[in-house]
């Protein structure tokens, strides 16, 4: 248990630390660095303490996450994970220390450390993941946080572009990884890493092996910057140097390597693996080394050198030899130590001199002997000089290259190419050291160079010490860790290897020495010409500018998206709707074509009620009339639409749906009032629009198309409705509702019971929508800029005002105020009656047609009638209506009615009922659903009144504006 506790602590600490650091003030440099360093060291201590457990087996802790999908959160620490975790945390702690002194005082350092810790956490969880899906998540997190880290100086364009490119390429790989993991999960039947690792034969023999391999490798190769995806890595150098030192030595780019090692036992040892991984590694190693030679920027050189070394490791993994995998793990560790220290040294040079251009730097040996010594040792390790760690792993690499020469002509070149790449490495390492530290004393540098502060050098000293220690006594230092890592990968089937410094005089040693001599010779032959290389970039490579190709691809994608949008998107509503209807038609027709046309019962006139037919004759005429009139005769179109609605309402009455009929009728009234309120702001016919002959023809064509579309939709819907209605109804769920309505919900009106009890959750959602719409309308109208009134004032009104003005005893408006006096009085007195009617609808709702919606809308009509009769001013002087509060209250009541059952341990919206004897009214059903229905009423009233009143008030606003600037 304590082991598991340590593991969980280590996995969580960086994330917690990240949040804590993010909360620090902007200038808290020391606090942020202390916290970040402390957290990293604590996590390192936890992992370090687990070494003995790892030697004995695997530490595993599983949490349930998505058990139904077979996805758990598993932390799994074996030897390989241990080695990588120590790398991540150890170098992480050193980078934190270095960054504290590297970052300028004006940089918001807590942000850097917060992102850095989050990245550490992501990386740590990546190596500790015991579940494939979890691994993908951690993988994507590393992409996201590396994006944030690379783009830390976001006011720098290069940083933004570099971050974007890194994210685009690595996140694309991450998506492939997800797909690949799903495929592997399908093959194995589990996402658990332990199960997957035990199923190597099943995976390799599966027909899905190749897709899974390609997808996983797409992720690994993009992340580890393998050719041709390497282009993101040099551009990521726009990050602060501590970040480059971290991302490109121990972490980000090693994630791909880690993945390939992790899945090596199940994916490797096939021809496909050999050719894909081997070729990618070889190409990357050569291209990276070749490009590194021609860099003038220190960080650029290190970036391409990183690419080259990653290629070397990948090539080792691709050789399908177990010994090569050990070499790969070993070189991964070595590369992390010497490359991190070199990046830090480059950062120090940049920091103290103000430039990273090797053509300007020289003779820094005198100014910073300490740093120069450290950098030289690290560079020598990179070049593979004996007695340093790089020599050991390079020796293993060359020996693998010699041992794995096959029959294929390409394979014969393996040792040659390996030696050439090693020689290149020697060449650029030498160039790095010689141009920076030796030669004439520097002149014309932005700052006078000097040694950095003590603490900034400490991380490099630690790393270089590691390089030397591993190089001198490998068995005492890296030996045990390498052994547990090897055992984690191969179990007991691991290869025998020997970490000795001296293996005797053999082919690898000869190649190694040849590479050293070749590199030195090449430098002295070409060093000067490289510096004065007019084109700047690597020779022979200028046609393969990856960045340019990437930008071209991105531009092409954006252009393609624009084209797609232009072709298939419609900024014009009519075209959009036409497409929508056409697609719906095609979908319907294709189903009909695929499944056979439905047979229609022969239509017969028998059994048709002539009154019903007449009703629909009127309804159809209303609809067609509305369609024809809506363009220039809006009032009549509104009335005709209302007519069609009324016919619908009557149809509901006729066909046994009294609830629908009542609601439809009331909704119809309110909608019509709304439309009438809006009419005044719509424009008159604009005679100024000139219609040319050509446009006229086009319009006619469009109308013909639209007519065909409309007629087809109508015919289709009609035939479909007819086809369904003339078939017997299948046994649906209706019967259960009908039978359960009274015994279970205490209601006799099944529709109402459905709404407020069985399907109350639906209704809750629906009234929420209604409330939202009410608020939206309110918000829209608050900033409403009404168009000018389209109507002039009626002639009658003008005449009345003239008459008022002519007589001394009358004010202007007196006559108009008396208009419709009798209806006004009648309507005013209708208020209580309509309210009682609404109450009646509400109370009977559970047993008889009526219910919350109908009652709410009826109550709305009571209010709106007052507005219509007396005007907004008069009503609001007498009635305080706060529709917004009503909306809230309604939702609250409905929600509470639903929540009360929780108190009794029942699910949300469970209803109970009882009958209560109320004096005068008699026996009343007291279902708890009635409380819910009450919420519905209140909300419906609130929302509808809000909309109507908000609209009605707009005319007042106009009048006020007119009064404010008379004769404007």
């Amino acid at each position, binding site marked *: 248990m304590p082991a598991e506790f340590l593991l969980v602590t280590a996995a969580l600490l960086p994330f917690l630390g990240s949040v804590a650091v993010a909360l620090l003030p902007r200038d808290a440099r020391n606090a942020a660095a202390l916290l970040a360093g402390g957290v990293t060291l604590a996590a390192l201590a936890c992992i370090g303490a687990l070494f003995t457990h790892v030697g004995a087996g695997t530490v595993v802790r599983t949490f349930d996450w998505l058990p139904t999908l077979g996805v758990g959160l598993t932390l799994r620490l074996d030897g390989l994970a241990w080695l990588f975790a120590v790398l991540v945390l150890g170098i992480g702690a050193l980078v934190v220390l270095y960054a504290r002194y590297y970052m300028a005082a004006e940089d918001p350092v807590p942000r850097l450390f917060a992102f850095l810790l989050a990245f550490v956490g992501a990386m740590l969880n990546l190596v500790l993941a015991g579940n494939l899906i979890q691994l993908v998540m951690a993988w994507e997190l590393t992409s996201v946080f590396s994006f944030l880290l690379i783009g830390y100086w976001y006011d720098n364009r290069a940083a933004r572009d570099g971050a974007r490119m890194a994210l685009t390429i690595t996140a694309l790989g991450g998506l492939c990884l997800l797909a690949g993991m799903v495929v592997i999960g399908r093959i194995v039947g589990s996402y658990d890493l332990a199960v997957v690792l035990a199923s190597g034969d099943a995976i390799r023999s599966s027909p899905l092996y190749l897709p899974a391999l390609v997808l996983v490798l797409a992720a690994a190769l993009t992340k580890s910057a393998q050719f041709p995806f390497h282009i993101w890595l040099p551009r990521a150098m726009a990050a602060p140097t501590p970040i480059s030192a971290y991302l490109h030595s121990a972490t980000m780019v090693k994630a791909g390597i880690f993945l390939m090692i992790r899945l090596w036992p199940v994916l490797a040892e096939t021809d496909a693996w050999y050719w894909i991984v081997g070729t990618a590694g070889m190409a990357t190693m050569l291209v990276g080394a070749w490009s590194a030679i021609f860099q003038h920027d220190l960080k650029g050189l290190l970036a391409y050198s990183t690419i080259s070394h990653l290629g070397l490791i990948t090539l080792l993994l691709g050789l399908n030899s177990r010994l090569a995998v050990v070499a790969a793990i070993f070189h991964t560790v070595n590369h992390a130590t010497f490359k991190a220290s070199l990046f830090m040294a480059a950062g120090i040079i940049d920091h103290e001199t103000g430039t990273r251009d090797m053509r300007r730097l020289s003779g820094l040996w005198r100014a910073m002997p300490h740093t120069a010594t450290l950098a030289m040792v690290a560079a020598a390790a990179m070049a593979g000089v004996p007695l340093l760690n790089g020599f050991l792993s390079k020796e293993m690499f060359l020996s693998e290259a010699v041992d794995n020469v096959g029959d294929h002509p390409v394979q014969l070149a393996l040792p040659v190419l390996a030696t050439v790449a090693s020689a290149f490495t020697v060449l650029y390492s030498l160039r790095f050291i010689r141009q920076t530290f030796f030669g004439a004393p520097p002149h014309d540098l932005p700052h006078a160079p000097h040694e950095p502060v003590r603490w900034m050098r400490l991380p490099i000293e630690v790393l270089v010490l590691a390089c030397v220690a591993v190089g001198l006594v490998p068995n005492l230092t890296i030996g045990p860790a390498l052994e547990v890592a090897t055992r984690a990968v191969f179990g007991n089937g691991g290869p025998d290897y020997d970490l000795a410094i001296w293996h005797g005089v053999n082919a690898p040693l000869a190649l190694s020495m040849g590479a050293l001599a070749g590199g030195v010779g090449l430098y002295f032959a070409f060093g000067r010409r490289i510096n004065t290389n007019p084109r700047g970039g690597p020779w022979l490579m200028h046609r393969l500018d990856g960045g340019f190709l990437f930008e071209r691809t991105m531009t092409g994608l954006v252009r393609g998206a624009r084209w797609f949008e232009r072709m298939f998107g419609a900024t014009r509503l*009519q075209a959009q709707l036409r497409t929508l209807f056409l697609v719906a038609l095609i979908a319907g027709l294709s189903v009909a074509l695929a499944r056979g046309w439905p047979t229609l019962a022969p239509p017969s006139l028998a059994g048709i009620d002539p009154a019903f037919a007449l009703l629909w004759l009127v*309804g159809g005429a209303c609809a067609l009339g509305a*369609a024809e009139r809506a*363009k220039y005769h809006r009032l009549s179109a509104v009335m005709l639409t209302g007519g069609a609605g009324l016919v619908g309402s009557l149809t509901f009455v006729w066909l046994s749906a009294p609830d629908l009929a009542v609601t439809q009728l009331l909704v119809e009234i309110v909608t019509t009032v709304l439309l009438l309120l809006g009419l005044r702001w719509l424009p008159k016919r604009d005679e100024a629009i000139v219609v040319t002959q050509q446009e006229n023809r086009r319009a006619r064509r469009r109308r013909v198309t639209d007519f065909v579309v409309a007629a087809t939709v109508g015919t289709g819907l009609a035939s479909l409705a007819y086809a369904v209605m003339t078939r017997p109804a299948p046994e649906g769920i209706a019967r259960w509702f009908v039978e359960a309505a009274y015994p279970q919900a205490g209601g006799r009106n099944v529709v109402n019971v*459905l709404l407020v009890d069985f399907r109350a959750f*639906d209704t809750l959602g*629906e009234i929420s929508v209604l409330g939202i719409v009410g608020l939206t309308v309110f918000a829209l109208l608050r900033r409403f800029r009404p168009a000018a009134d389209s109507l002039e004032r009626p002639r009658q009104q003008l005449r009345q005002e003239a008459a008022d003005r002519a007589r001394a005893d009358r004010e202007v408006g007196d006559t108009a105020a008396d208009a419709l006096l009798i209806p006004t009085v009648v309507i005013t007195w209708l208020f209580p009656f309509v309210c009682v009617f609404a109450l009646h609808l509400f109370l009977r709702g559970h047993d008889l047609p009526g219910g919350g919606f109908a009652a709410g809308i009826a109550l709305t009509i009571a209010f709106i009638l007052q507005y219509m009769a007396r005007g907004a001013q008069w009503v609001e002087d007498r009635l305080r209506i706060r529709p917004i509060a009503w909306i809230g209250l309604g939702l609250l009541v409905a929600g509470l009615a639903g929540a009360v059952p929780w108190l009794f341990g029942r699910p949300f919206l469970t209803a109970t009922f009882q009958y209560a004897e109320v004096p005068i009214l008699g026996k009343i059903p007291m279902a708890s659903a009635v409380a819910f229905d009450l919420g519905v009423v209140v909300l419906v009233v609130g929302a509808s009144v809000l909309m109507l009143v908000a609209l009605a008030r707009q005319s007042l606003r106009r009048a006020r504006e007119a009064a404010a600037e008379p004769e404007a």
Partner: protein
Amino acid sequence: MELVLSLGIGVLAASGVWLLLRPRTFQAILGLSLLTYAVNLFIFAMGRLKVGAAPVLASGTDAAGIADPVPQALVLTALVISFALTALFLVVLLAARGVTGSDHVDGQEPGRREQGLGKSGR
């Protein structure tokens, strides 16, 4: 009965679709209303047509003989939602008219798009 109602649904839907495809916002809003009627009736019709068999239980009602309450409940919800939608659409169209000065569904007269004029505030 079925024939008449399906023809009615067809005519309502066709008128609605026709109006929705017109260029003026007011036509579109009426079209939406008409299409809503048609669709509501269509959903309702899926429960088959019954005369004099409201889904209200009285003692002695034959549970099997009454109209299907499920489509009715669905349509009741749809009625209220479509009311809210019409109100929202109306306000949006009025606001658009106030802002752009045009009652074209695209906020500007198609012929004037090239000149960048969208004004017809008369």
